[in-house]
Every structure is written in structure tokens, then in C-alpha cells.
């Protein structure tokens, strides 16, 4: 394939959205209030909409028989390159919100830069997505503040979620080979440059929410190279169920 780096680069962006969208989809019908349920589903729908734009573009690059669905459903676990953060389970609402918040802050900074890409398709997707991502950020930051400040119980729960998910944040700023190649061509975003701003914003919100910022110096990584946590296999098992059980059919 001529554009292999670009193809891999797109998957590097979109797999995050797919897996996070899938996780949020699990919650539909089980939220803490009807209003919150509807809000989380909206975020899931936004993310999945973005996924489709990215994968449709990627499938054109790949040609042959590739479709958005073959990319979404027919890869092996080792071929998914999402960060470990987004595959973490919905342990409770605090985990869901913290996972969302830690991703949203990154997602915003990332899309801000992607709008300047030399690739006009990516620019267009970024321009549309950033409005959605801005809203997600607002939603999850507000909830971080509420849960942090709310009751001793909610504070303990969100502190626990932060403590346990913090270890997955650093990976957001690791560069893959595809990243490096695309940065060189003016298409990709240099994620290493987003890091200090990211922690600045995150720390600000956490402090406001009276949550202690963890001082972990050791971070988990691997998702970007297809080495996932044990949760991922089960998530894919569910997601790929139909395509694997009934191969080569249209739905």
C-alpha cells in the first residue's frame, strides 16, 4: 500500500474513538439518571460518528475489499492500536467519568492541531469533531468537579478512579512510527508537544475538584503497539461477535 503510514496513522486516531464509543455504549440503559444516560449515549454517538469518517477514509486508502466495517470488526486484538486508557472498564460512574475526562482533554488538544494538517480530509474531520469534543470536555470536567466536591463518598470514589487510571495517561503522548512519518509530512500532530499543556489543564480541574493529583512516575503503555490490557479481548469478543460468528454476510 502506497500510503501505509497514513493508513496506520488514521487507525491510531480512530481506534481510540471506537473503543471508547463501545465502552460508553455498554452503559446505555444503566446510567445513574435518565438525563445522564442520554448524555453519555450522545458522547458515544459522536465518537462512533467520527470513527466512521476516519475508517471510511482509511478504507479508500487501502482499497481492495476494505470497508469501515472490516476495519472496525475484522482485525486481531494485536492489530488495534488504541491507547490502554480507553479500553478500561466501566467499573463505576467515577471510572467512566475520569476515563472520559482524561481522554477529552487530550482529544481537544489533539484536534486543535489536527485542524492544521496538510491532509484536507483529516482537516475536515477535525473541524467537525472538535465541536463535539469541546462539549465532551465540558461535560466530563463538570462531572469531575461535581464528584470531587460532592460528598466524602463521591470524593473517595473519584480519587480512586484517578489513582488507577492515571497510569494510562502518559501513553497518549507516545509517538508511533506512523506518527513520526506523518509529522514529517505536515499531516500528523506531534503529540509530544501537547503533553505539558495537557497536564496543566488536567491538574487545574483536579485541584479545583479537590482531588489529589497522583505522583506516579511509572506509566503503562503498549496499546499503540497493539499490546493491550486483559480487558480488551472481552471487549472485542463482544464487538466482533456477529462478524466472527457469521462471516462474509451483510447486515
Amino acid at each position, binding site marked *: 500500500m502506497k500510503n501505509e503510514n497514513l493508513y496506520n496513522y488514521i487507525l491510531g486516531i480512530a481506534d481510540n474513538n471506537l473503543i471508547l464509543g463501545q465502552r460508553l455504549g455498554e452503559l446505555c440503559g444503566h446510567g445513574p*439518571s*435518565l*438525563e*445522564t444516560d*442520554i*448524555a453519555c449515549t*450522545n458522547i458515544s454517538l459522536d465518537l462512533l460518528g467520527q470513527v466512521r469518517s476516519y475508517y471510511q477514509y482509511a478504507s479508500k486508502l487501502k482499497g481492495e475489499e476494505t470497508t469501515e466495517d472490516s476495519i472496525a470488526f475484522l482485525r486481531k486484538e494485536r492489530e488495534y492500536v488504541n491507547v490502554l486508557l480507553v479500553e478500561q472498564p466501566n467499573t463505576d460512574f467515577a471510572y467512566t467519568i475520569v476515563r472520559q475526562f482524561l481522554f477529552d482533554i487530550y482529544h481537544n488538544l489533539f484536534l486543535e492541531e489536527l485542524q492544521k494538517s496538510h491532509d484536507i480530509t483529516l482537516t475536515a474531520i477535525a473541524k467537525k469533531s472538535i465541536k463535539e469534543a469541546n*462539549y465532551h470536555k465540558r461535560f466530563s470536567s*463538570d462531572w469531575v468537579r*461535581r464528584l470531587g466536591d460532592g460528598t466524602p463518598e463521591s470524593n473517595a470514589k473519584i480519587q480512586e478512579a484517578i489513582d488507577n487510571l492515571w497510569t494510562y495517561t502518559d501513553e497518549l503522548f507516545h509517538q508511533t512510527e506512523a506518527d513520526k512519518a506523518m509529522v514529517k509530512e505536515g499531516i500528523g500532530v506531534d503529540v509530544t508537544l501537547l503533553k505539558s499543556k495537557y497536564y496543566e489543564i488536567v491538574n487545574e480541574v483536579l485541584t479545583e475538584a479537590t482531588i489529589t493529583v497522583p505522583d506516579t512516575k511509572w506509566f503503562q503503555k503498549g496499546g499503540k503497539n497493539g499490546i493491550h490490557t486483559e480487558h480488551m479481548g472481552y471487549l472485542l469478543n463482544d464487538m466482533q461477535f456477529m462478524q466472527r460468528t457469521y462471516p462474509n454476510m451483510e447486515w
Partner: protein
Amino acid sequence: MKKNWPLWEVFVRSKNGLEHRHFGSLHAADEEMALENARDVYTRRNEGVSIWVVESKHITASNPENNGELFEPAQDKVYRHPTFYDLPDDVKHM
């Protein structure tokens, strides 16, 4: 502790040029949440460009038992309407 999220009334402007119209209600703990919930619940299909939310308890409503004294006196003030006035036939539009 058991305190339920209060009820809010939602008003949405469908597009600029139109007034805000009552769309329904929802529950939310605070005003930011009420706005966000209103956006997520009542404008999923692109129904609005502006939202107002107000906690339901802040609305003062007239009592239908007083409808007689409140609204019926207006019924016979026909002179407030243009059809009350006679015009010569040759005046076509006024």
C-alpha cells in the same frame, strides 16, 4: 442523604427570529447540568439554537380558578380588534 434533583423547565429557540418555546422539563442538580441535560434531551435532532432553563419552583402561575376574573373581561373588548371598525367599500386595504 436523599435529596432528589429538582425539576427544571426547558425553553428552546428553534431558530433565530423565533421566540423561545416551552419544550418540556427535566431533572438536574444545578444550572449547568440543567443546560447540558436540556441540550442532550431536547435538541438531539437539531431542534434548537438557544436554550433557557429555569427551576420549576421559580415559575409563578395563575390559578385556573381565577380564569373568570382574569381572562373573561377581555372577551367583550371587541373595539381592540380591527374588524370592529367600519370602512367605506372603496378603501381596499387598511
